[in-house]
């Protein structure tokens, strides 16, 4: 628990930055836009319709869409920016709608009185319409505030640190403490910010100076803190810093911590870990220089990026071709294999495999029409699945996409018959699952390899050398044990990584 709480200041600060800046940008757009719409009623329908459509996009998808969108524009596509833009878009509707409603719902007698005493159009707006509509506008702002705090937890997969780091990593590594800390912290933050906006409304309404100053001072302090920490964060992001990326599963968290630890110890460079990146987000981020290094799997590059046929290739050949492709096409260096393969594999419980006499995927084919299969978020969209399906002619009765950790529980409790597992997953041992042999080699090999981006490759040969010391040091067994230590025994990835580094100091080589 104390390990988790130690992360709180950083996560909370990042979450606060995202939320406050997005709300500021959202209000800065929505309130003036609402004022314009309230005057030019023709615009009301189209503008509110667009805002409503944005609102109906699932929030996680909206944030994820920002990544390729920004990349297409040649902008920083992971981290703060996509999360900030997504959250800003999301915050617009409640504020905009309430501004329009607040202004257009005013008593016409008030407007006429304002005109009658000789106010110009602007004076009417500032002295009468906005003050009278303020309670409704602030109610919209409160709704946006609570939403934004909540949705900001979904910034983690696009590479922005937030309280969502607790939740995503906690769900992946089955660390309920982390999930709990993340949820409670974001709930408390939502309540505090909501309370501040409510207090602002109360202070404006009571028209007493002291409470208004107190609320404005609190808000100003929060913004100043967020701004200062944000700018300091940008400054800290000097060319010197090495950014290690991790995808959204336990093994990646452990490996990123191992790499970060090794780089730090060997070169003294300051290292930052950006965790919980989506699979293709990680590769794009490497190309754009937003992360410098991460662990990829040779088959993923082979199938997803090179779009090569999955079937019938050998491990060494794939590794070599992938390395050449990355260097030639993208200037990315494949430093080397870590020493294990983490392949997609179909797995089922030992009991069921034995009762159906399934050892190879070929054996599974006749049973498939009566079985269900679960896959992680990407599995069914990947070339590997198409390859397995087509090479064997597999047709399952039911296909479900699930969260990986829930998927394992589902297969262990017989709610699903077959799952897409990773061959190094500690849970295969822990839950007594068996990996079904890919007898037609429909799935390509998945050597875990360290990829280094163009900038790091060029500028920091010492870091590349430090990473080289890790090649061939982790066997499949060891990786499975390390995964199990996190997934089952509740160790943190950082602790497991440290343990590994202690057991293999550089000098030993």
């Amino acid at each position, binding site marked *: 628990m104390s390990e988790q709480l130690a992360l709180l200041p950083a996560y909370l600060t990042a979450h606060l930055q995202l939320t406050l800046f997005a709300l500021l940008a959202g209000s800065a757009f929505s309130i003036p836009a609402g004022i314009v719409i309230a005057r030019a009623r023709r615009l009301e329908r189209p503008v509110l319709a667009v805002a409503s459509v944005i609102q109906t996009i699932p929030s996680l998808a909206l944030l994820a869409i920002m990544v390729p969108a920004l990349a297409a524009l040649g902008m920083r596509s992971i981290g703060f920016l996509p999360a900030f833009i997504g959250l800003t878009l999301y915050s617009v509707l409640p504020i905009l709608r309430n501004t329009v409603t607040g202004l257009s719902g005013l008593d016409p*007698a*008030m407007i*006429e*009185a*304002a*005109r*009658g*005493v*000789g*106010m*110009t159009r602007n*004076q009417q707006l500032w*002295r*009468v319409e906005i*003050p*009278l509509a303020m309670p409704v506008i602030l109610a919209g702002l409160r709704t946006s505030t609570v939403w934004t705090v909540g949705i900001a937890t979904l910034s983690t997969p696009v590479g922005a640190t937030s309280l969502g780091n607790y939740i995503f990593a906690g769900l992946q590594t089955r660390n309920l403490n982390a999930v709990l800390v993340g949820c409670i912290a974001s709930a408390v933050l939502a309540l505090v910010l909501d309370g501040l906006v409510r207090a602002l409304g109360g202070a404006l309404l009571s*028209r007493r100076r002291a409470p208004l100053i107190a609320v404005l001072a609190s808000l100003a302090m929060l913004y100043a803190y967020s701004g200062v920490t944000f700018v300091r964060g940008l400054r800290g992001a000097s060319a010197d810093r090495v950014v290690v990326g991790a995808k959204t599963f336990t093994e990646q968290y452990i490996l990123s911590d191992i790499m970060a630890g090794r780089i730090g110890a060997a070169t003294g460079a300051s290292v930052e870990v950006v965790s919980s990146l989506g699979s293709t987000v990680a590769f794009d981020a490497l190309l754009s220089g937003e992360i410098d290094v991460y662990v990829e799997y040779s088959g993923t590059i082979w199938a997803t990026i090179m779009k090569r046929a999955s079937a019938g290739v050998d491990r060494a050949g794939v590794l070599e071709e992938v390395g050449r492709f990355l260097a030639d096409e993208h200037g990315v260096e494949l430093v080397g294999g870590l020493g294990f393969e983490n392949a997609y594999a179909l797995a089922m419980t030992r009991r069921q495999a034995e009762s159906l006499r399934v050892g190879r995927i070929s054996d599974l084919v006749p049973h498939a029409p009566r079985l269900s299969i679960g896959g992680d978020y990407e599995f069914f969209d990947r070339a590997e699945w198409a390859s397995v399906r087509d090479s064997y002619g597999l047709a399952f009765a039911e296909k479900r996409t699930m969260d990986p950790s829930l998927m394992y529980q589902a297969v262990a409790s017989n709610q699903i018959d077959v799952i897409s597992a990773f061959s190094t997953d500690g849970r295969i041992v822990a839950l007594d699952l068996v990996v079904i042999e890919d007898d037609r080699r429909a799935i390509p090999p998945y050597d875990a390899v360290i990829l280094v981006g163009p900038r790091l490759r060029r500028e920091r040969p010492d870091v590349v050398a430090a990473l080289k010391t890790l090649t061939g040091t982790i066997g499949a067994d060891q990786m499975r044990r390390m995964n199990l230590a996190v997934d089952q025994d509740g160790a943190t990835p950082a602790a497991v990584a440290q343990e590994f580094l202690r057991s293999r100091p550089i000098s030993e080589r």
Partner: protein
Amino acid sequence: MIETQGLTKQYGQSTVVDHLSLSVAEGELLVLLGASGSGKTTTLKMVNRLIEPTSGRVLIDGEDAGTLDPHELRRKIGYVFQRIGLFPHMTVGENVAVTLTLLGWDSTRAAARVAELLELVELDASFAHRQPSELSGGQQQRIGVARALAASPRLMLLDEPFGALDPLTRDRLQQSFLRIRRQLKLTAIFVTHDMVEALVIGDRIGVMHDGRLVQIGTPAELLQFPADDYVRQLMNTPKRQAALVDGFLEARAK
């Protein structure tokens, strides 16, 4: 002081005010009397350009109101609203001083003027710090009158100002208004549908019907020489009502 020439307002096909020409002399109070929908309020609002006329013009001291800046024009003309229209987010004092603020008065000078005005409308100076919602309807409309008078206008427009008040309060406010009017020698146009109020308040009465000015004259002229049946019936209303009351009282006495 005020003259309207062929003042007309049309909304699409319907003519709300139809070629209305009249004049109000300096210091005179003209009542526009008519049923609802007769165009009297529209006429009033065209004087300070809350409504722009379709055709015709309004002359104020010989100057075409259509050529003046509408905001400056309105600041120079006191306007009392039918629905009072005090701003709920401002104190009573801020409401009274609202035109002064628009004219750029500093706060000390404005506060002194507010105190003067509250006294004029027979309210205690402490009212300045209260919220409009704490006031009774009669008190609110006194504030409405004070607000209209803030910038010392020579011309006042009043749109059924006492119509929503109970009879006793209305009576007191009418008396207060008459006193203020004499004291300040105001020129005013006063819209009402209440025959008795028109007779009590007006120097002259203009009767409106279906957007047209049917007859204009002193109360005595209208009573003696009604221009048509409509005016005659209208003028007879108070008498008819009084007769009804008398009859009722006699019946009770027997």
